[in-house]
């Protein structure tokens, strides 16, 4: 379980997060929704230690993460697939995965085989430079690279960005599958609220750095006001 408690983050004079608190339950998908600039990416960066909060704490199963370095937070079991995927284009698919597997406990061969089983297309292209992959394949690679380290929490930042609706649907399906089969805790940041709400158990809506809603995904999905004002979902 990830607990964010009263976190405020500022970049210079810009307040990105104001007193944000939320919980992401173990083995469930928590969607974090909101428009551009709502503070969604900052929230994930704060959890993984890339951003330092002015106040508040982040903890995972009673272990306080705030104040630790990103490199150490990752080792505790937080996998973060960053905005824009962060695939290293100069590396081959397998090199990207090998890098991700660096902090994995088990033998490399098994870990790779596991990912190739989940994402067969990556196995087919393992010797190719990541630069040659399509957008959807890159997203899979980014996810596989985070998963290969065996995290208990996965932070996904806008996985659907730039993907075709069909690919997005497939991807969301994979995420839901992973979650139910491995007991992974997922925090899914999305601008594409509809597809995220479809697979999430819980949804948190951010607006200008504040939490404006925190409820079951089904409830948020039915709330017309939320949908219109904060999620821009116009029928």
């Amino acid at each position: 379980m990830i607990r964010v408690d009263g976190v405020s983050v500022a970049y210079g004079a810009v307040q990105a997060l104001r007193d944000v608190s939320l919980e992401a339950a173990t083995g469930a998908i928590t969607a974090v929704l909101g428009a551009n600039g709502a503070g969604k990416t900052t929230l994930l960066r704060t959890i993984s230690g890339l951003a330092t909060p002015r106040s508040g704490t982040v903890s995972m199963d009673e272990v306080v993460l705030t104040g630790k370095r990103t490199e150490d937070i990752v080792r505790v079991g937080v996998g973060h697939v960053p905005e824009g995927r962060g695939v290293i284009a100069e590396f081959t698919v397998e090199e990207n995965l090998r890098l991700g597997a660096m902090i994995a406990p088990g033998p490399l061969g098994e870990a790779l085989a596991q990912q190739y089983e989940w994402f067969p297309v990556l196995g087919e292209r393992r010797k190719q430079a990541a630069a040659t992959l399509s957008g959807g394949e890159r997203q899979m690679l980014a996810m596989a690279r985070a998963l290969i380290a065996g995290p208990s929490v996965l932070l996904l930042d806008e996985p659907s960005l730039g993907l075709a609706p069909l690919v997005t649907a497939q991807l969301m399906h994979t995420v839901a599958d992973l979650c139910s089969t491995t007991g992974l805790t997922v925090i899914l940041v999305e601008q594409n609220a509809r597809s995220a709400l479809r697979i999430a158990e819980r949804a948190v809506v951010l607006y200008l750095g504040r939490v404006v809603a925190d409820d079951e995904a089904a409830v948020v999905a039915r709330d017309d006001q939320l949908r219109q004002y904060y999620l821009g979902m116009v029928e």
Partner: protein
Amino acid sequence: MSALLTSRNVADLLGGVTNGVIYSLVALSLVLVWRSTRILNFAQGAMAMIATYIGFAILAPSTNYWISMAVAIVAGMVLGGATERVIVRALYGKPEINPVVAMVGFLLVLESVAAAIWSTSSRGLPTPFSMVDWQLNHKPVAMSPFALYEIITAVVVMSIIAVLFEYTKLGLQLRAAAIAPEVSRLLGVRVGRMLTLGWMLSSGVGAITAVLVASNYFTGLTPTTMDGVFAFGFIAAAIGGLDSPVGALVSGVAMGVVLQFVGDYLNSNAIILVALGMLVVSLMLRPNGLFSAERQRRV
């Protein structure tokens, strides 16, 4: 066959390769830190020179050549790591001339301190192999045991670096930290350590280079021994592309050969002028170097 091997052109070629591998090593050393920290280490030569003094001037002159060399390499790596931690770390994210100025300042400090301790007069290093050219039918071939030693050492160093970067877990992390520091941190790579390690490796390569240069009987070791070598090494690195190790190696050797012919057929004083001209022309045609994959900057 023997006439060919002793001909003037082949002599130039062999001599050029011998000089060229030295330029390649300096270029490689520069590329190793440029790739990861975007800093052109103007103190590279001076740091290597200090390492060589530590290996060969602090230890008793009777010390075994190879022990001295090992000490120089270790000293170079320690100096490189310390430089990254103390000076370079304070320069990340600063305007790009700040590191230039800082490293030139460091160069001045190192050369002055070396001259203060060991004086500016040249110190001969023991030469581990004969510098007399081999003979073929009583004619000299432009290759001596010492020259071969230089070439083999360069090849070994380059191979070690290549294997380390391409085939090891550590090399994967070093490359990742250089290309995508933030993503690397998210995957658990200790980027700060990788940068320090990159500087250590670079300085280790530098120390070996300086030992090779100073072991040459005709050069010897002075506080400014590496100034000229550094200039050629930089030119090779810039022509090849500061972020391309392969470019560094190829252009270093190519430059050594071209300049050997220039020196032989034109005038030895024209060598560096021609090198400078090659640099100007190549930078105008390809500002990021011949072997670079770097894209032009955009807003």
